């Protein structure tokens, strides 16, 4: 419990400070989170859910925390252009874990739609936040969620009222910026009421070459017939640790697409839990990881079919080079009575070197009989015949390998429901494979 103790002490000492710089709705669950965290601590590898990531070790180093909410002297709009050509988005920034208060030049939101600092929104709309905050992220079940609930002071709230359609995609850029080893804990709350529609693109970037650890808890509530797309793109660096817990609850007839792409990272652990609570809900969950050197990507997904007539599709692809480690654990639970469930899960992986490691664990737990469920997982290499075929036609081996790997992960990119973003990602993926993408693209700092 050594790793936990420093945080238990820290919270005990600084509780007043943490609460002072946050909002009532976020402070309320801290006491329970503290009790839960004291009891369960960080997850260990003995727990099936965290079999492939040693959490406590990652939290052990001494990181700085900005509990006193000192302003960070950076205007992201000046230094950062994470633009997608041919696509206009409403652009927002979160620097570390604070919502950036500079003007948002491109932001145009329909009336009634809220997007902004979770702390401020909690003050302005306490009832709304109170109703949803912490309702999906169960602190008693997950040590990382408890930790985040304990320390998160700000984040983002997105609220789309009934039948409102947000045409223009919203883009949120998380920037990690610090001069010393640094930890950020951010919280995202997404609420779509009945019939609401929106698209959210979240990009993670690390600007400085120090060690970062970020935890993030995202809670998404999709009301009846709501349509929501969430794209997450991670482009950080080797010394970044990311914990992301994404919880989604879907009501009847809702349609949600989640796509998590890891292009560059240090150690990443994404937990995604989807509850299909209303009939006819559909979830499309996909993910892709390109990892090399000592990068680690661990995706854990859980889809809970609670009611009949729901559909889930899952597709995860990994390309692992050098000593990279990949892990995928996907569990689909079909509860008793959840008849006519349709569930598909696919995980395909390429290990490019002998040192690369892949752990995959596709799981089905089914308690209803009228279901169509399947999962498939493969680990292999590039098809020798295809490589030979291309070489015969004058394509160099190197190029042929790239083409195949490119095609391999593009299946995930093609799931994106925004053409411009799809094109952009095709390009990014290709650059990534060619080794030209050492850091993030388009950021003024990296360009210099």
């Amino acid at each position, binding site marked *: 419990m050594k790793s936990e103790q420093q945080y238990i002490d820290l919270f005990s000492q600084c509780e007043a400070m943490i609460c002072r710089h946050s909002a009532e709705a976020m402070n309320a669950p801290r006491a329970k989170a503290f009790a839960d965290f004291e009891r369960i601590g960080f997850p260990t590898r003995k727990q099936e859910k965290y079999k492939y990531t040693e959490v406590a070790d990652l939290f052990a180093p001494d990181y700085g925390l900005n509990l006193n909410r000192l302003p960070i002297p950076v205007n992201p709009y000046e230094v950062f252009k994470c633009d997608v050509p041919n696509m206009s988005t409403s652009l927002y920034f979160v620097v570390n874990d604070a919502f950036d208060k500079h003007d948002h030049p491109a932001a145009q939101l329909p009336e009634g739609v809220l997007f902004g600092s979770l702390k401020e929104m909690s003050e302005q709309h306490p009832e709304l936040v109170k109703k949803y905050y912490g309702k999906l992220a169960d602190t008693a079940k997950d040590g990382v969620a408890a930790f985040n609930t304990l320390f998160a002071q700000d984040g983002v709230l997105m609220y789309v009222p009934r039948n409102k359609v947000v045409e223009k995609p919203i883009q949120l850029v998380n920037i990690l910026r610090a001069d010393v080893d640094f930890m950020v804990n951010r919280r995202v709350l997404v609420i779509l009421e009945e019939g609401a529609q929106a698209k959210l693109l979240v990009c993670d970037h690390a600007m400085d070459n120090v060690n970062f650890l970020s935890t993030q808890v995202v809670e998404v509530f999709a009301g009846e017939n709501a349509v929501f797309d969430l794209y997450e793109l991670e482009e950080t660096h080797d010394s970044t640790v990311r914990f992301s817990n994404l919880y989604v609850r879907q009501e009847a007839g809702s349609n949600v697409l989640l796509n998590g792409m890891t292009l560059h990272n240090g150690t990443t652990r994404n937990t995604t839990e989807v509850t299909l609570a209303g009939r006819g809900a559909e979830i499309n969950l996909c993910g892709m990881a390109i990892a090399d050197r000592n990068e680690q990507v661990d995706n854990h997904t859980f889809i809970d079919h609670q009611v009949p007539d729901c559909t889930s599709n899952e597709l995860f692809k990994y390309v692992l080079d050098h000593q990279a480690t990949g892990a995928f654990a996907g569990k689909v639970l079909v509860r008793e009575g959840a008849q006519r469930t349709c569930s598909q899960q696919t995980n395909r992986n390429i*290990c490019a070197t002998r040192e690369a490691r892949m*752990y995959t664990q596709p799981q*089905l*737990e089914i*308690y209803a009989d009228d279901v169509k469920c*399947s999962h498939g997982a493969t680990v292999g290499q590039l098809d020798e015949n295809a490589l030979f075929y291309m070489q015969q036609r004058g394509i160099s081996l190197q190029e042929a390998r790239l083409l195949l790997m490119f095609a391999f992960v593009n299946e995930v990119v093609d799931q994106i429901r925004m053409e411009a973003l799809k094109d952009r990602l095709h390009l990014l993926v290709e650059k990534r494979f060619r080794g030209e993408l050492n850091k993030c693209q388009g950021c003024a700092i990296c360009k210099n």
Partner: protein
Amino acid sequence: MQVEPNKYVKELTQEKYKYGFTTDVHTDIIEKGLDEKVVRLISEKKGEPDWLLDFRLKAFRYWQQLEMPTWAHLTIPEIDYQAISYYADPTRKKDGPKSLDEVDPELIKTFDKLGIPLEERLALSGMAVDAVMDSVSVKTTFKETLMEKGIIFCSISEAVREHPDLVKQYLGSVVGYRDNFFAALNSAVFSDGSFVYIPKGVRCPMELSTYFRINAANTGQFERTLIVADDDSYVSYLEGCTAPMRDENQLHAAIVEIVVMNRAEVKYSTVQNWYPGDAEGKGGVYNFVTKRGNCKGVDSKLSWTQVETGSAITWKYPSCILSGDNSTAEFYSVAVTNHFQQADTGTKMIHLGKNTRSTIVSKGISAGKSQNSYRGLVRVSGRADNARNYSQCDSLLLGSHCGAHTFPYMDIHNETAVVEHEATTSKISEDQIFYCNQRGISTEDAVGLIVNGYAKEVLNKLPMEFAVEAQKLLSVSLEGSVG
């Protein structure tokens, strides 16, 4: 077939668990409970050498430090390990029977009822049988015929006496006493089991078979099987098991170890039909078994085939360690659960050698309120170049209160590996049933037909005699599950 098929199925389905009788033979049972004294007593009763007693004691001391594993997808009621008797000997004679005449006639009747060809006159069935009742090996047939070829097939106690070097060399070499909770328990208290040694270049001319039966009440059965196939040899080994119907649960924790040397081949088939408990989930055998083979030599081959229909709870993962280059392993399984049965079964394929191949075909059928899980691991180590694995696990659900689960693990540490896993879960389609109904086949018969077709891929791997028995078992186990 000339006989009316419906009648045949009906006969079968009406008989429920036909092996549920008990045999009234005098049985020497030691006091309930487990401590070091008991371990020493078992060893003493069997007149074991010191090294084996040491092995038992080490295992027992290790077991005491362990807790029962909880990771399986099973709800296991608490087991009081002190309420079980760890040794029951129905033969009660000095050193086990020397010939058939010495065996208690009741016992022979028992095995007759079970249809086991214990008597020489049943030699036509061409099987050498080692029958183990409760804790003791009762009779091994055909020993002399096998001996001519140099094949050793006897109870493990006898092997300890007569071939101590072989036993000492291989016992615990595949499943060490530190392997897991039940392996440690078994290593401490194992009572009997079979030992098979096939010498170099010998192809075993007949199927070897062991029949296990728990008879005495409140006893556990802890047998241990050790099979060693030396270079260029071949053996096919069958295992069957039954138990009487009792309201209390009975514990069965066995170990099977198989060593396969250069170019040798071992085929191990199991039809597991321990008493599954009644329709209300009362009673039944807890079957916690560790089975593992080591394909030690180059070009060796090990094949597991299992038909699991019995036991209240099954916890069983026949595994293969593919340490020899070019070795091959197969796992074929049909697991049927009905009423309140629970099964968590599957396999582990550990690829260590180069060019190793493994195939996994698992078919789960769940009915009633049962839970049926497939749990499997495929590990390809860094040195195992060109390893190849194909896994397929299908589940069939009959009824809306049962569960079918799949938990495959794949740990790949080598870029040349090709590993595939596929799983599907579904129920019998209404179209198929309708098609059969149209042709005058009743729904129950149609389900029987479809289930048999579904399991065919695995049943085909069983030796002839077993395949017939297994098919019958399938229909009996699923009786009353349709409607």
